[in-house]
């Protein structure tokens, strides 16, 4: 089953209309509309992108800031529908998102584990059974019943990381490999991420850390202005990217 395609992306593009002056107030919009100054431009965040990820493969997306890497993640995570083309994703998707984005400071550690895990696509029942193992792994068993407000930022990050990675996904979405907390936990969390990546799922990795990309991925895609400029063997794609950057 190693050839089972988890992600199939066929010639997708993502276009949206944006105002030329980046208006973000009603007042400005009203003035511009009256003066007939509303100039829109079609903006392509992605254009003509196609690739597959099979189970066991790690595909990396590299490129400059604003090249469409994050948009790519959003499209695969189902947050953004593509304007044209087709995306198919099979199975459970686990995004490693900004740590603690779904946390509520007023809730206890245990309550947050359940809420956060459910936001990440699991069921409350599953999560309730996982409270103790997650807290144990994060070294926070004694702090489960106090509000996260009273946690240090390191503790919050550890709990969020432990919750997000307590999963066996079919597809793992990584926006930069996270390492959080103190030295010990940093090693532990990096090891956990690599363990997940090697667990036989499909991985999409977006990163600026080219050494990691070269080491971890089976294939790389170099995006420029939303268009795939080069894809294939990671070392060659990185080389092409670097030679563009240096010119």
């Amino acid at each position, binding site marked *: 089953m190693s050839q089972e395609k988890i992600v199939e992306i066929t010639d*997708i593009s*993502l276009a*949206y*209309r*944006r105002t030329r002056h980046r208006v*973000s*107030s*009603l*007042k400005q*919009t009203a003035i511009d509309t009256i003066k007939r100054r509303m100039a829109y431009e079609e903006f392509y*965040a992605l254009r003509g992108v196609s690739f597959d990820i099979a189970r066991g493969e790690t595909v990396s997306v590299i490129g400059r800031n604003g090249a469409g890497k994050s*948009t790519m*993640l*959003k*499209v695969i*995570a*189902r*947050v*953004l*529908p*593509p304007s044209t*083309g*087709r*995306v*198919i*994703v*099979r*199975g*459970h*998707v686990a*995004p490693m*998102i*900004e740590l603690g*984005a*779904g946390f*509520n400071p*007023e*809730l206890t550690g245990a*309550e947050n584990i*359940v*809420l956060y895990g*459910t*936001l*990440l*696509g699991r*069921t*409350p*029942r599953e999560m309730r059974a996982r409270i103790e193992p997650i807290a144990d792994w994060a070294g926070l068993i004694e702090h489960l019943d106090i*509000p996260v407000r009273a946690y240090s930022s390191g503790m919050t990050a550890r709990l969020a990381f432990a919750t997000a990675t307590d999963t066996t996904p*079919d597809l793992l979405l990584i*926006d930069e490999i996270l390492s959080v907390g103190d030295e010990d936990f940093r090693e532990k969390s990096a090891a956990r991420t690599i363990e997940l990546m090697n667990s036989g799922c499909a991985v999409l990795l977006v990163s600026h850390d080219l050494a990691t990309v070269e080491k971890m991925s089976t294939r790389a895609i170099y995006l420029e202005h939303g268009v795939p400029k080069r894809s294939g063997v990671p070392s060659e794609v990185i080389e092409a990217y670097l030679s563009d950057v240096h010119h």
Partner: protein
Amino acid sequence: MQVYDSSARQIPVISQVKSIYENRGLLRLLVVRDLTVRYKRSVIGVWWSLLNPLFTTAVMFYVFNTVFKSKLPDGAPFLPYLLSGVLLITLFNQGLTMGADAIASGAGVLTKVYVRPEIFALSASISSAINFVIGLAPLTIVLAFYHKTPTWRFPLVLVIILCMTLFTTGLSLLLAIAYVNFDDSRSLINIFLMALQYMTPIFYPISVLGPHTREVIVLNPLTSFLDIFRHEFGNSAVSTLGNWETMLGCSSLAFVVGFYVFSKRWPKVVAKL
């Protein structure tokens, strides 16, 4: 195994409602979260949710009853009339703004994970509805003080709550889009909500208004919600069939339009977040 196919046809509103139903576990958690944060963590607990409407009512009662010496035309007691008005407008304001806020400030999660934002709007409306139900207790006490008891029709209040939930959920989705698109929409909506509050007969009977003003006030759907609520719970106003038509019509319309517009606009909004 769940399969996401971006080219699968999605019927707006129906697919959204279906997705909310499939994620009812999350919906329940979000409602429990709102209530926990409000009650369990506060020293005065449940009283906290009553403090705001009760205090508002006390201030208004003093101003209008003692300072302006307002009287209802039929000699009905002013306090239950006022309290039911304040409770209902609180239900509306809370459901509307909490829902929109939850979506507008949820970017950290909503841009990374597939969660239907509509669930956040609905959960805010449901939490406000639960607060409203708690508020019925002091209203019952006030009614009893004036030797009134809730009428046998009081279960109809559930219909009002259901309609209000649909109404505020739909509107808060539209508001969320405005919040994300325009930075200044928050202050504008506050002015609008204040105007709407004065256009709802909370502390005055509609009969004191001139014929032209009355026509405008009657157009406000909240007037219908309020007339029905006062009529069915405590009999402190009269409601008509027209009120029911307005309430049912406006709430279903707001729900369908809100969901439909949201399904079309949200992808464009997310792209900018």
